[in-house]
């Protein structure tokens, strides 16, 4: 098993009521399995922000691994060695 700190921003932080949480994942887990686990845990409002109706990560949701933005086929990225995942939903407040 591996432990990863999930950092929440924007509306996600409001829904979870926390800025971050630590989750346990099976070795070899990917971003997709992490997101699936989190959506199951936090419910439909959380999931609706993070993924579309097909369960794919929304294009405008930023997934940041140890301070570096990911792009491309993000779901397939393996989390081996990653300490912190930041999930950032888009904000445009002024």
């Amino acid at each position, binding site marked *: 098993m591996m432990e990863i700190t999930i950092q929440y921003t924007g509306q996600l932080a409001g829904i979870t009521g926390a*800025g971050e949480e630590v989750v346990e994942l099976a070795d070899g887990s990917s971003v997709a399995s992490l997101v699936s686990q989190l959506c199951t845990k936090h419910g439909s409002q959380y999931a609706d922000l993070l993924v579309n109706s097909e369960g794919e990560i929304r294009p405008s949701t930023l997934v940041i691994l140890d*301070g570096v933005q990911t792009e491309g086929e993000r779901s397939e990225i393996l989390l081996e060695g990653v300490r912190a995942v930041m999930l950032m939903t*888009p904000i445009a407040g002024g």
Partner: protein
Amino acid sequence: MSSGKELTDLDRSIYEWQLDVPGFGDEGQAKLRNTTALVSRCGGLGGPICLSLAAAGFGKIIIAHAGDLRLDDLNRQILMRHEDVGSARSESAKRTLSSFNPHVEVEVVPENITEDNAEALVAKADIVFSAAPLFEERLLMNQECVRQNKLLVDSAMYNLEGRIIPVIPGDSACLACLYPEIPPRWKRRFPVIGAVSALAANIGAMEGIKLLTGLGTANANRMIYFDSGTMRFQTIQLKRNSECKVCGKRS
């Protein structure tokens, strides 16, 4: 950027304390004096941006913002005045800026950014500060800045958080690299304390000043993120999207 205006004795008197900043000096001040900035909206974010640009001595500030001032704007829109409730926001902003620094030219456009005016407004500016509450406007500004090769600083906030993205077209990730579509779940109404808007605004203003003058280290290809609830600040490394519909073919 025009290069015509030399610093006057009055300029040196007004900006004396910032002329002392190492790496800035007369050269940096002259660059700002000859810079026109377009600020998209002058509310909680755009207002403090305008104020800091005026304080820094930008040559000209163009403000694009439609609508009349409402009571519920006043917790964050610091260029406004209570007696102007019901009057045009852009005119209230102009009066405050002109009173604060009459040596900065202020042009107001009582319209928000649309497909009809974006091209012409961006063409008049050397740098654009994007502070609209809707992604439609932000992505439009980004598209025009990339197309016209203009510097862009996109600042945003939500609740106690802020994020700032400086964009050098063709060199760093643009807003559309990060947000390739209009985010469907973003709502026009957002929780806001004015000090958080002003914090994001002033980080954005400073990033713009750095991009223009070479002062310090500009954060192109990085997002500056802060959570004022914990006062945690961090920079996030961004990546250009080679498939980006706006900047993907620019090198």
